[in-house]
């Protein structure tokens, strides 16, 4: 057990802290306005965004150092300063292209995506293909040197904001279902694309239905070979699962509940003096602590190339469920106040973020592989139990 990051890394931490002190007033709030793009450029120039992406592809070009990446994340979070742009293009497509993209794709796509000039959406799920993603039907036929795409996607987050889509389509209708899929990239401005908004339970418009009618895409806009799309997609799913787990954010939410319980009173009594709520608070605190320790173990495993057993496989399941429960606690603590919702509502606490997160994290329990699918994976790959008859993935 050695929990310190060591002298070299602590020096690096001081650099990050200094950067934040000097530049924090340039940091944007939320959104993707001009100031956000300028901030992103500044972060890339200093190696705080796109850190390990090679220079020739528009990144900073540092050697991978997991601890340095962690330090950057920690210090930006502590300072409550935007860590730069996110989104599915940056968090999912770029890592995938780095692994399996062609040289040309890396040169053309990674830079603009990283700088926030090209926004992506992920076109995987379909009405008939959710957990059973490989059942997807949207088809692409080669016509000369163009794919012609017909079909429908659903739950496509940010499709209404996106410039481009990375999309799974069926190109080999006669092949077994996992081997007939290809991974295509194309512009959302292409003729034949229709986007219909879906309103989610938070009242937000975050995802959409996307319809394709004879959408024509140059044949070269494929990642990997024809029929290899499932392999490419699985690399991305791996990135998605990993990125949901931030127990340090959970800690700051937990501290938020403590604050709430110290400041709110019901019947003249501060909520922190309610033994029942206090016990629930401590229960959640213990669970958050366990996930933070687990996270340290994963970090250490990644740094030292050590086997961590099933400690990684359980993270999506445990953290999304725990976060949902944590937000629930805040709502319960507030009693009737907990039901207030919507911008400008009188008496609203925390901008309504407790209810919003409570619902949002139910979405994350479902999205990217439901809790039940996670349990299948843990049982099968973690505990060596027999596979679901139809879940055999290539």
């Amino acid at each position, binding site marked *: *057990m050695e929990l310190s990051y060591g002298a070299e890394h602590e020096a690096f931490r001081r650099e990050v802290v200094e950067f934040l002190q000097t530049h924090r007033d340039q940091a944007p709030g939320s959104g993707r306005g001009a100031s956000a793009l300028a901030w992103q450029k500044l972060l890339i120039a200093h190696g705080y965004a796109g850190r390990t992406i090679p220079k020739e592809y528009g990144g900073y070009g540092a050697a991978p150092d997991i601890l340095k990446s962690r330090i950057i994340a920690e210090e930006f979070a502590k300072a409550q300063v935007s860590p730069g742009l996110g989104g599915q293009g940056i968090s999912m497509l770029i890592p995938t292209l780095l692994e399996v993209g062609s040289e040309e794709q890396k040169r053309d796509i990674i830079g603009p995506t990283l700088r926030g000039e090209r926004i992506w959406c992920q076109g995987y799920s379909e009405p008939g293909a959710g957990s059973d993603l490989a059942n997807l039907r949207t088809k692409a036929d080669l016509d000369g040197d163009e794919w012609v795409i017909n079909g429908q996607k659903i739950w496509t987050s940010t499709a209404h904001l996106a410039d481009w889509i990375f999309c799974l389509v069926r190109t080999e209708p006669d092949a077994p279902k996992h081997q007939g899929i290809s991974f295509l990239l194309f512009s959302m401005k292409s003729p034949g694309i229709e986007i219909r908004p879906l309103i989610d339970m938070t009242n937000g418009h975050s995802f959409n239905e996307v319809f394709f009618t004879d959408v024509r895409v140059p044949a070269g806009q494929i990642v990997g070979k024809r029929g290899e799309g499932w392999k490419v997609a699985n690399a991305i799913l791996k990135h998605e699962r990993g990125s949901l787990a931030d127990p340090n954010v959970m800690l700051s939410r937990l501290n938020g509940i403590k604050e709430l319980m110290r400041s709110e009173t019901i019947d003249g009594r501060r909520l922190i003096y309610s033994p029942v709520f206090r016990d629930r608070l401590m229960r959640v605190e*213990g669970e958050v602590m366990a996930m933070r320790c687990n996270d340290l173990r994963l970090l250490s495993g990644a740094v030292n190339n*050590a086997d961590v057993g099933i400690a990684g496989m359980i993270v999506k399941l445990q953290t999304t469920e725990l976060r949902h429960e944590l937000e629930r606690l805040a709502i319960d603590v507030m009693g009737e106040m907990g039901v207030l919702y919507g911008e400008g509502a009188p008496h609203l606490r925390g901008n309504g973020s407790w209810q919003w997160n409570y619902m949002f994290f139910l979405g994350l329990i479902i999205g990217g592989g439901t809790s039940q699918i996670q349990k299948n994976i843990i049982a099968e790959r973690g505990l060596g139990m027999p596979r679901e008859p139809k879940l055999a993935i290539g």
Partner: protein
Amino acid sequence: MEFGLSQEQTMLQDSLTRFLGDSGSLARARVFNANNEGRAPDVLAGLAELGVTGLIIPEEHGGVGLGLLDAALVSEVLGRHVTPAPFIGSSVLAPLALMRAGSAGQQAVWLPKLASGAAVAGVALSEATGARENAGVTASGGRLSGRALFVIDFEADVYVVADKAGGLHLVAADAKGLTRTRLPTIDTTRPVGELNFDNVEAEPLAAAADSAAVVRFLIDTGRVMYAADTLGAASAMIDQAVAYAKERKQFERAIATFQAVKHMCAEMAAALEPCRSLVWYAGHALESLPAEASVTACHAKAHTSEVGTRVAKTATEVHGGMGFTDLVGLHYWFKRIGLNRQMLGGPEAVREDAARLQALAA
């Protein structure tokens, strides 16, 4: 940065696992139970040979001089094997009390005996956490009176006793005026008992500047050790449930192919794995992160107990009727987890303690 076990620590767990064996240990626990043994000299001798009895005792007193994370790792293996042997009291808390609050003379007398397994020490702390009515020990003029309940590693030659005022004492098992009553509990692998003191001669462990802080540290340490024992016992139960599910056939298929059964197993494993990380951290914190040690110990104890209890129930259910029988002996683990949960504070009590430590409670 390394959050994990060293090679030595893994070897320590492996060698102990080899000694305890996978099947032999339950068989030994059964005999221990059937004969109502207080001590299993063969097991104790083996543990002594491996250095387990002297694990945290300094080398100059015949021990191995390892730390409390190492002790937690041993506790885990002992729980895993439902080992009928003293450890948390005799090999961790009592030596710790002597090392932190005993005089040089007391250390020289007792530490070598504990290290070699020649003596076993019981520990009476329950009056310092969760004191009962009609119980509690008071010290006056070097003599103890009153009652200590739920004494850990009860079948002992000497006892470390906490009094109501935060003082610590050593009492010989055969001291005049001391009445010892074993308390039958669900867990037959580790004797627990009651001590009644009628003006009993005792030696104060009075070398520490702040005796109450030592008592607090003993409680924190004990909680982490019980959490580790539960971790080991629960992971043994999961392994047995998974293995049984792969073997047992119903409706012409292994029950492991039923998704309900798979999900029971996955839920157990997903809940328990973070406890492993938490127990490691809490074990490390005891000596290396003093500012966090108490709260972390509370959470390790409470959370691992909650998960352990759920695992104990679910793993039993996976076995069907067989789980309820004495035949497979799964209940030894069930009961071990059950005892660990209550000792030195159940989850609610320990969480309340965690709240108090953070000034969240009145």
